[in-house]
C-alpha cells in the first residue's frame, strides 16, 4: 500500500471525530464552557484567598493542565466510544487497521482540540489573572503541552483497553481516570503533601514531572524532565502493546461482536 493510503488509515479516526464533534452541541461545552468554569473558579479562589503571584501561576498551571488533559484524553477514548455507542465497532475492526492507526488519528484531533483550549485559557488567564504562560519562552510551553498530551493519550488508551476487556460498562473509565490523575499528580499542590503511598504513584506518572518542569519557570525549583519524558515514552509504547493485546483478546473472547449488538 502507498504511503498516502497508509496515512489515510491514520487520519480516518481524526476525520470521524472531527465531524462528530462539529455536529455536537456538547463540543461547545467541552471546548469553552467547562474549561472556563474550571479556570475562573480557581482564578477567583486565588483572589479570595489573596494568594500571591507565583502561587497563582502554580494553581493556574494545574487548572489549565487538568482541563486540556481531560479534553485530549476523551478525544482519544472517543475513537472506541463513538463506535461502541453507535454499535458500529464491528465495521472498524473488520477493516485492515491496527491499534496505532486508530490511536494516532484520535490523538491528533485530541491534541488539536487541547491546543485550542490551552490557547483560550492562556489568553483569558493572562488578562484576568495576570498569568503569563510564555514567561520562560515558547519551548517550555511546547514541552509542557507535549507532556500533558502524552499523558492524555495514555489515559485514552487505558480507557480503550478497559472497554475491550470489560465491555460497555467500562466507559465510566473515560471520565474517572482523569480524576485519579488530578488527585495523584499534584495538579493543585506539590506531590510532597500526598501520603507516602500516593507519592510513589505520583512519581510513576509522567504528568507529575511535566507539571514540576513548567512550574519551575514561575517558582524556581528542581525538576526531572528527562524522567517525565522517559515515562511518557514508556507508557505510550506499553499502552499500544497492551491495546493490541486487548484487541486480540477481544477477538478471542468475542467481546468485539457483543459490543456491536
Amino acid at each position: 500500500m502507498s504511503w498516502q493510503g497508509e496515512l489515510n488509515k491514520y487520519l480516518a479516526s481524526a476525520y470521524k471525530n472531527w465531524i462528530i464533534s462539529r455536529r455536537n452541541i456538547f463540543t461547545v461545552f467541552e471546548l469553552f464552557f467547562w474549561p472556563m468554569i474550571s479556570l475562573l473558579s480557581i482564578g477567583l479562589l486565588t483572589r479570595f484567598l489573596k494568594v500571591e503571584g507565583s502561587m497563582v501561576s502554580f494553581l493556574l498551571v494545574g487548572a489549565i493542565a487538568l482541563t486540556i488533559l481531560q479534553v485530549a484524553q476523551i478525544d482519544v477514548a472517543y475513537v472506541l466510544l463513538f463506535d461502541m455507542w453507535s454499535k458500529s465497532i464491528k465495521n472498524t475492526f473488520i477493516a485492515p487497521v491496527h491499534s496505532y492507526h486508530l490511536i494516532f488519528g484520535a490523538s491528533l484531533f485530541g491534541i488539536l482540540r487541547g491546543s485550542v483550549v490551552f490557547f483560550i485559557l492562556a489568553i483569558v488567564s493572562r488578562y484576568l489573572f495576570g498569568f503569563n504562560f510564555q514567561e520562560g519562552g515558547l519551548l517550555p510551553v511546547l514541552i509542557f503541552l507535549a507532556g500533558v498530551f502524552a499523558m492524555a493519550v495514555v489515559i485514552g488508551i487505558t480507557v480503550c483497553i478497559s472497554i475491550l476487556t470489560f465491555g460497555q460498562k467500562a466507559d465510566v473509565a473515560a471520565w474517572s481516570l482523569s480524576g485519579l490523575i488530578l488527585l495523584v499528580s499534584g495538579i493543585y499542590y506539590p506531590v510532597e503533601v500526598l501520603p507516602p503511598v500516593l507519592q510513589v504513584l505520583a512519581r510513576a506518572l509522567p504528568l507529575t514531572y511535566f507539571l514540576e518542569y513548567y512550574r519551575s519557570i514561575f517558582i524556581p525549583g528542581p525538576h526531572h524532565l528527562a524522567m517525565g519524558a522517559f515515562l511518557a515514552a514508556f507508557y505510550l509504547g506499553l499502552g499500544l502493546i497492551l491495546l493490541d493485546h486487548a484487541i486480540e483478546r477481544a477477538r478471542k473472547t468475542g467481546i468485539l461482536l457483543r459490543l456491536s449488538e
Partner: protein
Amino acid sequence: MTEKSVEAKGICKSYKSFFGTAARVLENISLDIETGEIFGLLGPNGSGKTTLISIFSTLIYPERGSLFILGMDARRDKGEIRKAVNISTAKPNFPWSLTVKENLRHYGMLYGLYGSALSRTVEDQIDAFELGEFRDMKFENLSTGLKQRLSLAKAMLNSPRLLFLDEPTTGLDPDMSIRTRMLIKRIHQEQNISVVLSTHDMPEAEMLCDRIAFLRKGQIVAMDTPRNLKKHLGLGERVVVSYEGLADIAALESLPGILGIKAKMGRVEIVMDRSADSLDRIIKLFCDARILDIVIKEPDLEDVFLELAR
C-alpha cells in the same frame, strides 16, 4: 488446484466471560466454499450463523480448528485477508451523525483509499446503491432500507473478493427485500465475487444460494444445493388428489419415486420425487374414478427448514 474462498475444518467457538465461564456456540464446523459461489448459512436464531460469519471475516477468532480464507491462513495472514473481504452486518450500524457520504469516506480511509480514488469509489458506491438522493442525510435519519443499502455500499468499498452478508434483508419490507436480493445477485454476477450469506428467509436462500448449510445449535446438520437438500430429506413434490369413486391406492405404493402416501376417504396426498416422473402413472390409477381436484405443490426450503430445525 483452484483456490477455495473458505476452507474450514473443525471450527469450534465458545464465548467466555471475563471470569472464564464459557458458552459453546459452534461445534466442529467443517466446510469448503468454492470461488464464485453464493453460499447460504441457514438456521434458527441462536444457531451460530453470525458467529460463523464473524469468524470467517476474521473479526473474531475460533477456539479450535483450521481456517483458510481465499487460500490464506486466517491466523497468520489476517491482515491480508481483511484487505480482501468485507461484511454487511445484520442491523447495520454506523456512526449516527455522519452522513451517507461521510460514512463511506471514513470507511474508505480505513481501507487505505485516498485522493481521487477515494472520492471516485465513494461516488461509485453511492450511484451503485442508489443513495445519491440521500448522500447528505445523517445515518440516524435513514430508513431501515437505506441503512441496509449503505451497509452494502460500505461492504463494496474495497472491491472484496469475498463478501459476507449477515441477514441482509432483515427488517426490510417485501418490496425492499426483493430489490436487495436483486442487488446482491447483480453484485455477484457483475463483480464475480464469492458471497457467504446468512439468513432465515427461505425464499431468499432459494433464490440466491448455490449451496446451503443448515446450522442448528452450532452444528451443521445438512449441507448441499437447495434442490438436493429437498430431495435427500424426502421432501418431494406433494400431489393432492381429491376424487369420487374407486382408485387403486395400494398400487400407488409400488410406483417408483413415491416417498409417502396419506389417504382418507376421497382424498389422497402423495409425496413423490420429481425426478422419478411418476405423475402420469399416478393419474392412470384414478382412471375408474372422477378426479375433482388435483394440486401439485413443490417443496420449498421452508419445509426443509422445519424438518431440520426439529
